[in-house]
């Protein structure tokens, strides 16, 4: 993995597109997509998984819309998805942390936003579990929720709401680039 472009970055998309073939002016055979429209399976996964995570968070934050039961189950799901998201991007975390001092201010900014988001979301999910009244009750688990955890949940949820769009927007060029390819409806656009 070392030496490869970072997962979920613009470089990945550019690399996946590859240089144009000498005969790229010819029409692609039926059932295949032009090289520039092919998306690696990993980029495809990142795009849809992160999109689903964003949608789930937006829903979970809208307590008046979801009700407490859906809010809690979504929160537990987001907690597990967050673990997977971090695991999938752990290479980026390690690489950026190592190069933090030598890289540009933009990467440092993204790293700091991501760190704040990691802390806020972890604390939000943790406090949410500890004040759960429906989901854990249905699982037969009782938790001693105190007002500390309620306040922490409220504060970290607001912080997360502010940080999630920043986290997403700081990668808007990647999202735009992959989004264009993903929504370009060609059969066989995914490469394995």
């Amino acid at each position: 993995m070392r030496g490869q472009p970072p997962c979920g970055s613009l470089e990945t998309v550019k690399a996946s597109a590859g240089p144009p073939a000498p005969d790229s002016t010819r029409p692609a055979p039926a059932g295949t997509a032009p090289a520039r429209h092919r998306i690696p399976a990993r980029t495809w996964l990142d795009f849809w998984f992160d999109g689903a995570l964003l949608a789930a968070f937006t829903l979970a934050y809208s307590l008046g819309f979801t009700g407490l039961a859906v809010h809690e189950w979504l929160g537990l799901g987001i907690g597990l998805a967050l673990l997977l998201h971090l695991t999938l991007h752990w290479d980026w975390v390690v690489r950026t942390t190592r190069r933090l001092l030598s890289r540009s201010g933009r990467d440092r900014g993204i790293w700091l936003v991501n760190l704040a988001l990691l802390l806020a979301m972890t604390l939000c999910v943790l406090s949410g579990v500890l004040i759960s009244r429906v989901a854990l009750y249905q699982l037969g688990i009782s938790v001693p929720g105190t007002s500390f955890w309620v306040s922490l949940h409220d504060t970290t949820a607001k912080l997360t709401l502010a940080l999630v769009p920043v986290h997403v927007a700081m990668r808007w060029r990647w999202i735009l680039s992959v989004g264009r390819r993903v929504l370009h409806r060609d059969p066989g656009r995914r490469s394995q």
Partner: protein
Amino acid sequence: MSGPVRFTRHLIAVLLVVAAVTALAVAWAHSSEASWLAGPGPVSHRRPPPQIQLARRADNGPGLRLSDSGDLIRTALIESAIAAAVIALSALRRQRRRMTRRTS
């Protein structure tokens, strides 16, 4: 290193980070500094924040309330506004960098 092995190692690293954050939060909850967040007085008998009270009053029933989409729209608008501001700032900075490069 094979894919599953690498994934497992990364997952363990992530779980360790999450465990560290959890331990710090639990230590905070049991320290005297807990009142900094929850306010003075006994920690377990204070009123929860308004949003939680609203949720408790609202219902515990399952299912989405499609007729009550105001909350969802508000959340989406807040997220969109923040994202738009960040994108605008980013585009502005990019444009300035290009202008500086051209003039120099």
